[in-house]
């Protein structure tokens, strides 16, 4: 159970304070209500590029990192398709430094051509390192484009292509800041070896005078229900064939989310899961296979992914996955198996609760979803799920006409097929 106090400043900044008497450390976490889904389709990757620019100095503080390090702290940030999150971890006695730093960059960023120029290059190298210059690096670009046709989840957080990042201009940066980086779009969490009574006046002091922005009216095109199976085969310079199945599922705050996550666990989380046990251990089709959910705010994906062993045909492997899907849809789910999935989540939550950083980030995230208190109710919500509900979700989510299937094949293992596919492209005129 994570205890916290909550208040809202007059400029709309929501604040959560969590005291932990066992530590001399503190975490300041700021979550901004903006992610890659808020981007213009012609300017993708911008939310993440912007995250880098937040370290380029602010109105009164030329070098953010130096100040954090001088106070004995470390900091970082991450961007997802839904949110952008910044955190500083530092000795609790120096907590005010973190509040000073975060409030100044919320007040006004130091918009500089130099910083934009360097970070464009840095992010381009990040793009290359993780998504271009790596085997299977473009898998998520392909899956997103296959599974989403209108919703902005159809591009990755890093962006659709390098050119979007290379073209970012300083005017875009400014407009983005004043639209999304206002106190009424943010959630501040202060956690650790601090006292609520002492830290509250400091928060009011540093954040109180930051002017609010216009309310942000998020109107994203929602993805229509998928009506037919989508299939794509690509050939790449990789040593092993890979298979991906992505099924649309509900959003993070919908009631069916809990049964869906448990379903994914039973199918493919851990070596005793159905997919691993039957397809890695018994049939020896895959070197590894697992299933997981993308718990995004808007409807997400349940993903099954695996790498095939040599000499196993991808069609055979895919059929074997479908057989396991039919089995979980049609036969009774043993209570013991459901209990295992719940037990795994229970210990995962307990490990997360040991970490001050995870507690701070989770508080911000659940508050952003709707209510920080939900963080403490998660276990209960998972515990309430019945085997019948999991089966129900399996029947609705894992339908063939809702599947997005990617055969990501090795060029060198399929030389003749590659030649055939090139010819057919030529005929189609592409």
């Amino acid at each position, binding site marked *: 159970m994570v205890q916290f106090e909550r208040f809202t400043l007059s400029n709309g900044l929501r604040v959560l304070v969590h005291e932990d008497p066992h530590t001399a450390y503190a975490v300041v976490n700021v979550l901004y209500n903006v992610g890659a889904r808020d981007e213009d389709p012609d300017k993708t990757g911008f939310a993440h590029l912007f995250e880098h620019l937040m370290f380029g100095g602010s109105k009164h503080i030329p070098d953010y990192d130096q100040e954090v*390090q001088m106070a004995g702290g470390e*900091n970082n940030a991450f961007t997802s398709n839904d949110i952008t999150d910044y955190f500083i971890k530092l000795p609790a006695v120096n907590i005010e430094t973190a509040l*000073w730093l975060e409030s100044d960059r919320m007040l006004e960023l130091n918009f500089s051509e130099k910083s934009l120029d360097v970070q464009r290059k840095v992010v381009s190298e990040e793009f290359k390192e993780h998504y271009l210059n790596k*085997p299977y690096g473009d898998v998520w670009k392909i899956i997103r484009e296959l599974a989403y046709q209108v919703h902005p989840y159809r591009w990755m957080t890093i962006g659709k292509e390098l050119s979007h990042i290379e073209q970012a201009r300083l005017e875009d940066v400014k407009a983005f800041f004043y639209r999304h980086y206002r106190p009424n779009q943010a959630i501040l969490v202060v956690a650790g070896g601090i006292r609520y009574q002492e830290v509250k006046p400091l928060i009011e002091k540093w954040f109180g*005078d930051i002017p609010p922005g216009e309310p942000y009216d998020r109107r994203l095109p929602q993805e229509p229900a998928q009506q037919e199976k989508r299939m794509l085969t690509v050939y790449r310079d990789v040593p092993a064939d890979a298979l991906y199945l992505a099924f649309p599922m509900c959003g993070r705050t919908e009631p069916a989310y809990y049964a869906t996550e448990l379903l994914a666990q039973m199918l493919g989380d851990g070596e005793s899961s159905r997919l691993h046990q039957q397809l890695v251990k018994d049939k020896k089709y895959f070197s590894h296979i697992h299933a997981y959910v993308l718990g995004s705010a808007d409807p997400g994906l349940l993903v099954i992914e695996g790498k095939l062993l040599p000499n196993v045909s991808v069609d055979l492997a895919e059929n074997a996955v479908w057989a396991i899907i039919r089995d979980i849809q049609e036969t009774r789910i043993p209570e013991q198996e459901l209990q*295992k999935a719940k*037990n795994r989540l*229970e210990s995962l939550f307990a490990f997360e609760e040991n970490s001050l950083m995870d507690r701070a980030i989770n508080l911000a995230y659940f508050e952003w979803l709707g209510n920080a208190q939900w963080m403490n109710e998660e276990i209960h919500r998972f515990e309430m799920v019945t085997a019948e509900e999991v089966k129900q979700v399996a029947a609705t989510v894992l339908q063939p006409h809702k599947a997005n299937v990617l055969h990501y094949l090795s060029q060198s293992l399929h030389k003749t097929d590659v030649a055939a596919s090139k010819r057919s492209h030529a005929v189609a005129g592409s």
Partner: protein
Amino acid sequence: MSEALAVNRTLRPSITSPVSFDIRLKPYASIRLDNGVPVYFLQADHYETIYLDIVFPAGEIYASHVLEASATNALMKSGTSQHSAREINETIEFYGAYLDAYAETQVAGFGIYMLSKHLTALLPLLFEILTDPVFPEEEIHLYQQTKKQQLRINLKKSDVVADRLIDEVLFGKTHPYGRAAQESDYDSLHRDMLKSFHQQHYVLPAAKIFMAGKIEDHVLNLLNQYFGQSASQHAPATPTVPPPVPADTHQLKHTLDEEALQAAVRIARVLPGYQHEDFNLLSLLNVVLGGYFGSRLMSNIREEKGYTYGIHSLIYPNDAHYASWLVTAEVGRQVAEATTQEVYHEFRRLMAEPIPQDELLMVKNYLIGSLLGRLDGPVQQIKKWRSLILKNQNEQDYARQIQTFKTATSEDLLDVARRWLLPDVFYEVIVF
């Protein structure tokens, strides 16, 4: 809000310099089991979880075949005379536990994270894995297939290839710190090799146990009942690690992909190990060079030039005698050469000019602050104790290290830089 308007943002809040912090490890409690196995532990009643790590002298240095240590360790949980791999996985996962099987250079063992309430149920299984693995042929075969596939994928990654090459360049192809597994090494694994490595090296009286979290009353008795009884076997003698046999040439270029967008750059040398009197100063100098976000390498090569997403340096302490000092970065293909030149430029600056006072203070504050952060919580603390105890060090050694970090002067660092950072003695690997 009227009070808030008065805030003067150009005045930075005062800080307490972490250099003034008194950093100490929380003392552990310890007992010896009946057969002499030491148990070091930290009690944390506000936790619901427990971490238990059992360590054996079974690391890479004991292995004659490159995969002996890691494959034995990985396959011990794949079947005992009582339980199949399937049953073992099922039990561990049913209780929501996470088993971390590891083989390091010196030691190998098993760390297990679990809810404290499940320890009683899991301990007998852990005992079985340690004392009675049968290494089924089918599991060995599966391991070979899976690992070979993983290796084929990894050998397409320039960073992995560069890491393998730099170790080989520094230590030599057959040295325990320089060798790397090939596909053929997986093929030559066999059951007798694994069984005999297990019998010789997973010897209970030679084990050490580390534990942190909520430890219920009966746990120590239970540990004694399982791990405190066998006393007859002898621990293997620690082999002497041979001296490195570095490559003849200091520069190696390797091409994986003619059209690669990036190059993996590694610049490294062998250093004396943690017993050497310069080791603590070198650790501090490494932070200045490339050990934190504001480091010389990051400031110049990422934040000034934008050549890379990240460039880092680290000292990897292999043992008491040998460490490796390594600079790593993935950089744009066209700027690979420019990057290496800038790295050497930073070496020469550290050899030529004393580190300015404000920079040195920042590094010390950062380092002490982050040490405090890394010791936050009983699991982190017992892991630090583990690292000291396995090096035959104690709290005085730790205190000495902290003292060096706090009191080192720019002149001290200039002196070690001049002795250890000469660009000519470093080796360079670039993989496109």
